[in-house]
């Protein structure tokens, strides 16, 4: 469904992404991990043409993103980015309705059908009861769900998530990712998530892409990617990798200096 074909990208001088190639199948849940500056966010940004790679191409259903208009891309690919705040507080329902924008074109006002779709998105994300609250009065977890609902209202085929769990407590981390997983499993949405949280990425993803210096270091199921050797090499710190006793997925423990 998404085909990244030897993509290289640089902002000015240095290449931030170098010859990155991979494919994402429909209905997959893919995690992108890697240290700061390894190119996770940049990679995500090339996937919805916020950035256009200087070399290589990104294809969606065999069609280059370069050949699609912004509106067409927005109907296929929704993004839940790191915290963005409107400069003036909109209400939750208004924020979610903005997800209908790609379908409205030059129309000024949403139709009852758009409202229905927004309502369903709010039902899924369980924010219907707070639909009239201004966005600046919500907690971090609630706000995350508003942005996921907005992405759902776009009726996309793919949702890209950039660090969806930062600034959330463990309860809200799990709650947000459970929601994303249910969209993946029950609605068949394809998910691509960049994350710093190795354990969550391992727990939820079907497949992991480990980036180092803008290149793919390793790619495959979490069991293959999340090994002590890989993580220590890429992140340059000592870790202990074992299995989550309940799920059996790889689990990374951080080690204080001098503890072996």
């Amino acid at each position, binding site marked *: 469904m998404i085909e990244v074909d030897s993509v290289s990208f640089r902002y000015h001088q240095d290449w931030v992404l170098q010859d990155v190639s991979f494919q994402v199948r429909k209905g997959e849940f893919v995690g992108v991990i890697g240290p700061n500056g390894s190119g996770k966010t940049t990679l995500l940004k090339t996937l*919805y043409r*916020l950035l256009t790679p200087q070399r290589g191409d990104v294809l969606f259903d065999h069609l280059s993103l370069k050949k699609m*208009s*912004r*509106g*067409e*891309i*927005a*109907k296929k690919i*929704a*993004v839940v*980015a790191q915290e*963005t*705040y*409107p*400069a*003036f*507080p*909109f*209400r939750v*329902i*208004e924020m979610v*309705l*903005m*997800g209908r*924008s*790609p379908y*409205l074109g*030059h129309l*000024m*006002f*949403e139709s009852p059908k758009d*409202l229905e779709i927004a*309502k369903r998105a709010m039902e899924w994300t369980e924010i219907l009861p707070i*639909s*009239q609250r201004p966005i600046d009065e919500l907690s971090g977890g609630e706000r995350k769900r508003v942005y996921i609902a907005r992405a759902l209202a*776009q009726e996309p085929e793919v949702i890209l998530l950039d660090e969806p769990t930062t600034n959330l407590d463990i309860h809200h981390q799990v709650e947000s990712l459970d929601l994303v997983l249910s969209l993946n499993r029950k609605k068949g949405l394809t998910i691509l998530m960049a994350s710093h949280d190795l354990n969550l990425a391992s727990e939820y993803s079907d497949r992991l892409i480990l980036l180092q210096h803008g290149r793919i270091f390793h790619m495959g199921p979490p069991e293959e990617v999340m090994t002590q050797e890989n993580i220590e090499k890429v992140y340059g710190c000592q870790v202990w990798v074992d299995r989550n006793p309940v799920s059996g997925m790889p689990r990374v423990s951080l080690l204080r200096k001098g503890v072996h």
Partner: protein
Amino acid sequence: MKILTLKKVLLISALLGLILILVMILSITMGSVKVGPYRSISILLQSILGLKGAGTETEKTIILSLRVPRALLAGLVGAGLSVSGAIFQALLRNPLADPYILGVSSGAAVGAIVAILMGLGTLSFGLPLASFIGGLLTIFIVFYFGRQEGRIHPNTLLLAGVIVSSFLSALIMFFLSVSQREELRTIVFWLMGDFSLSNYQAVRLIFPYLLFAFFLLYAHARQFNLILSGEESALQLGVNVERLKLISYLGASLMTAASVSMCGLIGFVGLIVPHSVRLIFGPDHRLLLPASAFVGASFLIASDTLGRTLFSPVELPVGVITAAFGGPFFIYLLRTRKVVKIL
């Protein structure tokens, strides 16, 4: 579920339009020469209907040639400044932004001062024309410096605007320091905002222009909502962000230049009217823009009316009134946040 519909926008606009008409009527009945409200209205109606009747020639002149064009011009300028203020706040994503923040007003002021010093101030259109040209030049200079790699960066634009604006302020200061006394008074009055030279020609000149700019901006009202969450966020929802920024910058700047050129620098309107409207009706530009236009028009007409009647026959510059009454009112609104639940 309550959401914004066309019906609501039209209904609220009609309501605010009605208030505007009442304010205008009130305005033309007030002034240093007493013409009773009933008499003023009948003079106005008869002239609209093309009838002869009530009122002496003097009264007719006062109502029809002085007060009516003055109210119309104040209304247009108030609407123009309020709408462009709302747009600048969205474009720069900065609640402190107002129509003057990018230096258009300073450029217009330099143009006007040059015209006054060259003795063009007495020509019927010397002053507005010179000031409009000054504003236009500033728009292009700021635009030129405010771009990077062919794209508008709001912060760079803001910085370029503030710097160009302070350079122009230095020029203004220089001109003030070398001006003769009688020119000085004209300049100072212009800088504070002055409607005393209003006439129908000015109204006819800027009305189609402001109307065009308004509809150009209003056609993108929904996109302005999206860009409030940032450019990337708007782009993710399919907005052509660069085009939107270009349209909003040029549209709002030209609106400001046109408004300012007719009456000088009236402060505060473009800052507090959009904010007040947001506090009452919410931040959605589909309602914010028309509501700001009507409220801004009413507010400036009322301010100007106060300015010319409060210490009559002495006329206060309208900028004094907008700041003196608008400021405290805005603080009150901000503190109480009395958000009327119309939506």
